[in-house]
């Protein structure tokens, strides 16, 4: 019996409890950052979905985060009479459609560096077009976005209150995380793993590799758009920074920091990154320096990330335990 069977649910429960208690324990600034961390964690999970389950390292994933954000921001900014939930749904759908089209183009040549540069170039192109569009506020983006009030008929949810919006994000985060976990641990997830590990053999066994990859890319794009669509009203501003290649790197950093080999790695990494940024915020340049240094350290010494590090500790403990048990038997 290994220790993780009850450890993991306990840790997750503790994590959820801590998130739920946050509005009563921390100030507004930190609460905002925790909200951002949850959105970044969703963003990173969607990136790792492609990376871990389809072997696709996209360098332009922020394109979808930005598209979702801009879609919601435009609806709010220009006052389209669309309920907030529908606006988010629409933004997610737009992100999914764009991701599907991009996947059709990009996955023609799904090979390492070409794929990296192709996704990077496409995201830059979208960024440039956005920055030339008056409707989307050109280089300045759209700011002063009003947070919405949700009207369900029998009750209203006032997201103008930071605490309410925080819980709204938390529920979305929980739903996405649980849904993705269910998705990847099922049959589809295992087929995808087979595609990543040996796409040729998977194809031989009758798996339509290209279709599976396109599906994963589309799903990842939709989730990233969803996260972006929540981020824009949470931050009340959207700018082209949200689709810059620097933002594209964030999910990669989070995934690697937390551990690409584990489902929870990107979540751990996203919160870790926010922590580093929070504690180094007063010193210009230090946060980048620290993040770069830590990431380099992780890649060099523990390529499986923080999650992998815990996994290794657990295995070592188990080994010593079985070894001592064996001694007892002799």
């Amino acid at each position, binding site marked *: 019996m290994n220790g993780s069977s009850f450890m993991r649910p306990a840790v997750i429960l503790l994590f959820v409890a801590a998130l739920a208690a946050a509005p009563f324990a921390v100030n507004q600034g930190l609460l905002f950052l925790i909200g951002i961390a949850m959105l970044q964690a969703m963003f990173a999970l969607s990136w790792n979905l492609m990376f871990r389950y389809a072997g696709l390292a996209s360098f332009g994933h922020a394109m979808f985060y930005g598209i979702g954000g801009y879609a919601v921001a435009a609806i709010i900014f220009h006052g389209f009479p669309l309920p907030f939930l529908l606006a988010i749904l629409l933004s997610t759908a737009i992100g999914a459609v764009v991701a599907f089209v991009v996947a059709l183009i990009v996955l023609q040549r799904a090979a390492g560096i070409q794929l990296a540069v192709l996704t990077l170039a496409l995201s830059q192109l979208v960024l440039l077009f956005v920055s030339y569009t008056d409707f989307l506020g050109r280089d300045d983006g759209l700011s002063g976005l009003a947070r919405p009030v949700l009207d369900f008929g029998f009750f209203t949810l006032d997201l103008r209150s930071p605490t309410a919006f925080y819980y709204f994000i938390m529920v979305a985060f929980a739903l996405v995380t649980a849904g993705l976990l269910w998705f990847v641990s099922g049959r589809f997830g295992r087929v995808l793993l087979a595609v990543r590990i040996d796409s040729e053999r998977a194809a031989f066994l009758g798996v339509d590799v290209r279709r599976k990859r396109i599906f994963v890319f589309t799903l990842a794009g939709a989730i990233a758009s969803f996260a972006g669509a929540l981020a824009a009203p949470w931050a009340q501003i959207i700018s082209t920074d949200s689709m810059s290649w620097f933002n594209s790197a964030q999910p990669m950093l989070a995934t690697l920091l937390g551990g690409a080999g584990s489902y929870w790695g990107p979540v751990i990494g996203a919160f870790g990154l926010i922590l580093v940024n929070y504690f180094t915020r007063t010193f210009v340049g230090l946060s980048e320096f620290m993040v770069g240094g830590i*990431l*380099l350290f992780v890649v*060099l010494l523990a390529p499986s990330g923080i999650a992998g590090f815990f996994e290794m500790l657990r295995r070592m403990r188990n080994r010593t335990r079985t070894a001592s048990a064996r001694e007892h038997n002799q």
Partner: protein
Amino acid sequence: MTAQIAFAAANGIVLGMAVFLVAAGLTLVFGILKVFNFAHGSFFMIGAYIAHAITGQDPSSLPYFLFAAFVAALAVGAMGIATDTLVLRRLSSVANDYTLIATFAILLLCDGATKMVFGQDIYAVYPPAVLDQTMDVGILLTYYSVFIVACGIIVFVLLELGLNRLWFGKLVQTVARDPWMAGVIGLRVQRLKLVSVGVSFALAGLAGGLLVANQSLSLSLGHSYLLLAFNSVIVGGLGSIRGAFVAALIFGLFESFNSLLLPSMPGTVSYMVLIAVILLKPEGLFPERT
């Protein structure tokens, strides 16, 4: 109109050569280590900052300007040797994606360090007095832009000759093609790699020192050239100096004519060219012979 076109063409060539100066080191590193170095632009930027720290705003003479660029090249080359021994060499057996992300980590490290050391101010550096004049050959050209083109061509010729004609270049090519076999026949693989990586990084520093007067010096300098240099290296064919040279020229001209013919959307055409080339000819214009 003809004057405008001639002017755009001249600008394009100058931009192309500037991009080539940055791309040369990038493609060279790829040719040797098979590593696509995201941090290259940051090392270029560090070179520019070092040159500025030596010369100040107004370099007193052309030799002093060149001396500063040379010092920048040496310093950045040393950083490259450190990067190779501390990071890249250790990752040679790990999957490619991790190396890409490691170079991104180096990019962050360099950008953060540059911010801490040099601050966030924007500086202007002027070309030395000799180059800070214009000549009229139907269109107005600055001496400095001619100087950049000359530098680009010199670097190109030296690299082409060095890699394909000199004994050292042939050794480097051997090591790059088949490190194991090169080791068997008694070449010092690691040392040769180290020297050539040092040279590649030094090229980034040199480019920084030479191009520092081309526009204002700020923390976004690295990124502005980096993407164009990336594109040139990909379109030219990874690892090919000749390819990078031709592609940099193509991109320079496209950028320049883009601003002339489509002034409302600068910068978009080169990305479209890049995407088209990757889809139609993913190995680039001058693929490595295997």
